């Protein structure tokens, strides 16, 4: 029974393919997966927008949207109708082809990221041997699309936003990939499916997730910080800082193209969270050995929702960074921390299993965190601001 529930979508796919005419069968199997991914994650996007607005509202002691449907849950439908019926304005001086291509290719790239994510047991669209490399290669396309948007709009704010986006994403891609390399070193595989299977075992009731090791924990935190920056979310939302450069690279976008940008950004966030889950949080595996009867895809979705809630919580808490703070943080803290983490995982790998390697690796991680943090905060003067002329 539990086995059937776990594999229900796989069985369904096989059933549909088996009943299709023979000539269609090779195309149909991946096509069904693509349709499922597009449907599920587009729906998740709609749910996330309304939950984010409601959550941010509550954080700021407001109600949030509560007019459309019960508790405002149909708000995404209203938003969708609004964005479709709005006029699509293209600036006269804009490069029209690139201006159109940018949001489309962003969404395409964001959707193709999901191809290598194992959403459940036996539920991965493309089990590539170099899945992680594929993921990072495709996620770099989003940077180009953002620059395409900023450049083709021919607007100074767009270009400023795009320049900021490029600087930020290139800087944060380094710690992002270095943090993931730790996992690749530990598993010895670039395949996302193999990485999840390596973490699916249990010691007693506790799982072998990489986040429960000193280097894995540090790597996970580094990965999530860099992921926040990669997906342009607060507090790293400099490329679209509303109060400084209006909306950055999508100033000149309206109507459905704007909605596509929005969609692409959220899909990027889901995909990068999904890879974080795959690498550090054990993918679709259950958090305790006695919970393995729950279908695996539910665990994946649950972990994804947990990370989305964390993203929203952080967005509701932290103000936007300054450009120099952003760069200092990437190059003076994240990068050395990720490099030390690489050494730690090497030590972990070659030491005997036991309390000693836990101790040594924890000391390395904590000491480097404290020392690097002290180095980063050395020049800071945090004091109450005094307004000379306001009082």
């Amino acid at each position: 029974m539990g086995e059937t529930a776990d594999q229900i979508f796989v069985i369904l796919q096989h059933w549909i393919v088996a009943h299709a005419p023979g000539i269609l069968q090779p195309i149909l199997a991946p096509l069904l997966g693509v349709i499922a991914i597009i449907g599920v994650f587009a729906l998740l996007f709609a749910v996330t927008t309304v939950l984010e607005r409601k959550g941010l509202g509550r954080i700021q002691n407001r109600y949030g949207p509560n007019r459309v449907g019960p508790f405002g849950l149909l708000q995404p439908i209203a938003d969708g109708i609004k964005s479709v019926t709005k006029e699509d304005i293209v600036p006269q001086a804009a490069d029209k082809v690139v201006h159109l291509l940018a949001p489309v290719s962003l969404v395409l790239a964001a959707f193709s990221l999901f191809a290598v994510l194992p959403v459940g047991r036996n539920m991965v669209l493309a089990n590539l041997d170099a899945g992680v490399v594929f993921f990072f290669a495709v996620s770099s396309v989003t940077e180009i699309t953002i620059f395409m948007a900023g450049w083709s709009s021919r607007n100074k704010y767009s270009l400023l936003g795009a320049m900021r986006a490029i600087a930020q994403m290139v800087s944060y891609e380094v710690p992002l990939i270095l943090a993931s390399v730790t996992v690749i070193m530990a598993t010895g595989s670039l395949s996302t499916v193999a990485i999840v299977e390596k973490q699916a075992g249990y010691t007693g009731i506790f799982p072998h997730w990489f986040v429960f090791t000193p280097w894995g924990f540090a790597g996970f935190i580094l990965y999530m910080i860099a992921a926040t920056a990669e997906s342009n979310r607060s507090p790293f939302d400099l490329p679209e800082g509303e109060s400084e450069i209006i909306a950055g690279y999508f100033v000149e976008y309206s109507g459905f193209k704007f909605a596509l940008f929005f969609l692409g950004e959220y899909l990027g966030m889901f995909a990068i969270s999904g890879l974080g889950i795959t690498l550090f949080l054990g993918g679709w595996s259950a958090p305790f050995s006695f919970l393995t009867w729950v279908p695996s895809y539910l665990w994946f979705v649950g972990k994804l929702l947990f990370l989305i809630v964390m993203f929203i919580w952080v967005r509701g808490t932290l103000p936007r960074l300054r450009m120099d703070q952003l760069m200092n943080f990437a190059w003076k803290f994240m990068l050395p921390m990720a490099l030390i983490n690489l050494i730690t995982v090497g030590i972990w790998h070659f030491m005997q299993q036991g309390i000693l390697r836990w101790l040594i690796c924890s000391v390395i991680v904590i000491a480097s965190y404290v020392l690097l943090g002290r180095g980063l905060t050395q020049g800071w003067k945090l004091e109450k601001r005094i307004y000379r002329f306001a009082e």
Partner: protein
Amino acid sequence: MLGEGIAKGLVETARNFFGSYVSKDRLTTVQYPEERLPQIEATRDFPFLVYDGDDWQAGMRCVACQICEKECPPKCIYIEKSKDKKPDALGKPQFYPAVFNIDISVCMSCQICVEVCPFEAIKMDTEFELSTDNRFSGLLWNKEKLSKSNEHYNKIHPTEAAEVDARLAEDKAKAEAKAKAASESKPTPPTSAPAPTGAVHG
């Protein structure tokens, strides 16, 4: 240590998040169409014409003196004086406005018409939900639309209306006493008696 402030901030926002579900006092939003804040008494937006009694045509205080029309800075009032006269609240025959229009799309809510009116006939209303589907005729209000009862005035501005009512009652009592004295000393027809001029106030 690095990250301490972030942890503190996360705790604070979590407290706000859960607190907003527990205590209603945290939520400052007034959900407008369903909930409303009580209006403060001094609130005002556009003028209306006060009438006494139940019939808005018979009880209208306005005597079409046209002072407000002349004083109105944006010139949003238009008045046509009637040809005939009819008795006012004191029983004295007066003109009345045949046409009294206010274009509230022009009106700037300055209240000067109220200040200059010698007959307490025009006052400021508090009605603010005035949207209409025609920006010309929908916002040009005629005499009927402008007329509101003295009870309405008492409801929206109680203190001010009580003062006005007391003053009018005093005037009426004075006029009655004068008329009585006049009729006792000189039993002549009331048409030749000097008209009481108690309506103007300083």
